[in-house]
C-alpha cells in the first residue's frame, strides 16, 4: 500500500533553509513571494491487510524515525489509486 508522508517544520520554527531559498527567488524576480518553507516528502510502500493498518504502521514510522516531533509536523496521504483509512 503506497502512501506519501509530508514532513514540515512546525509553525513558528525558524526555517533558515526556506528563508535562503526565498531570498534566492526574490533575486530571480519573485519579489511577490510572501513566504516559503521547505519540508520533506517520503514515499513509502507497506504491506498491510487494510488501509487502517497501513496508516497505523506509517504513523508509527513517523513517530519513531521519519519526523522529529519537537520540530516537525507530519501528514500521511494516500497515493493516487490507493486508499488509506482517514485520520
Amino acid at each position: 500500500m503506497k502512501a506519501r508522508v509530508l514532513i514540515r517544520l512546525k509553525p513558528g520554527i525558524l526555517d533558515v533553509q526556506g528563508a535562503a531559498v526565498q531570498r534566492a527567488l526574490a533575486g530571480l524576480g519573485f519579489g511577490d513571494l510572501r513566504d516559503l518553507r521547505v519540508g520533506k516528502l517520503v514515499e513509502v510502500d507497506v504491506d498491510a491487510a487494510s488501509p487502517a493498518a497501513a496508516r497505523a504502521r506509517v504513523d508509527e514510522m513517523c513517530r519513531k524515525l521519519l519526523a522529529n516531533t519537537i520540530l516537525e509536523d507530519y501528514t500521511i496521504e494516500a497515493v493516487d489509486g490507493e486508499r488509506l483509512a482517514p485520520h
Partner: protein
Amino acid sequence: MRFGVVVFPGTWSDCDFHYVISEVLHQPVKYVWHRDRNLADLDCVILPGGFSYGDYLRAGAVAGKSPVVEALGEFVARGGFVLGSCNGFQILCEGGLLPGVLVRNECLQYRCQSTNLLVENVDTPFTRGLRPGQVLTMPISHGEGKYFAEPETLRALKARRQVVFRYATADGQVVRSANPNGSVENIAGVVSESGNVLGLMPHPERASESVMGGTDGLLLFQSLLGTLVEDGTFLKR
C-alpha cells in the same frame, strides 16, 4: 576506566578520541561498532563527531535508532557514563537520551572556529573538576548545532541545572555575539537528569594537547576519571 569509542559509518572524530584517551590519558579504550549491543565491559561510551549515516533525514536521526544507541539506555541505567560531542550530541538527542534537538545553524554557515564556554554546572561527573563560572576554550565544527527545546522543556532543564555549557565571551559574558549557531539561550552542552550523559557541540578531543592550541578539553576527562580515582568506585553524582 574503560572507554569505548563508537564508530558509525561516517564518524570522523573516532580516531581523535581514541588517541586522546589512549595516548594522552593512558586509559584503556576500544572501538565499538554501531551494530554492537554489548557494552558490558565499558565504563564510559563516547559518541564522536562526524556525519553518521551521512546525516540522512536529520543529523543523528538514523544513528539515534541504531543497535548501540538502543543499548545505551540500559548502560546509562546501570550508571555508565556517555559523552557525545558534535554529531554525538545530535545522536543523543535523536535517540531520546537527552532532551531537545539540534538544527541547522541560524547563520546557515558551517562553523569551524574556537569558542568560549561558560561552565554553568560543576556538579556533574564531567565538570566536577571545574570552578563555577570558569570559561573553557574548545573548537566547534558543525553545520547543525543550533540547540532547540520547547519552552517547557527548557524551563525544566534550567530548573534541574541540566545546562552545563553556554557559548560566551572570553570573560564569560553570555551574549548573542558569542553565539556561533543561534542556539537557544546560547546552550552548548546539556547533561541528562541522571547526570551521567553529557552532550555538547564543541570538540573536547580537539583541545587536549597544547600543540593543538589548548588543553581545556582534557578537563572533562580528568573530571570524569576523578570520580573513579577517589575511592575506586563510581560516585553517584
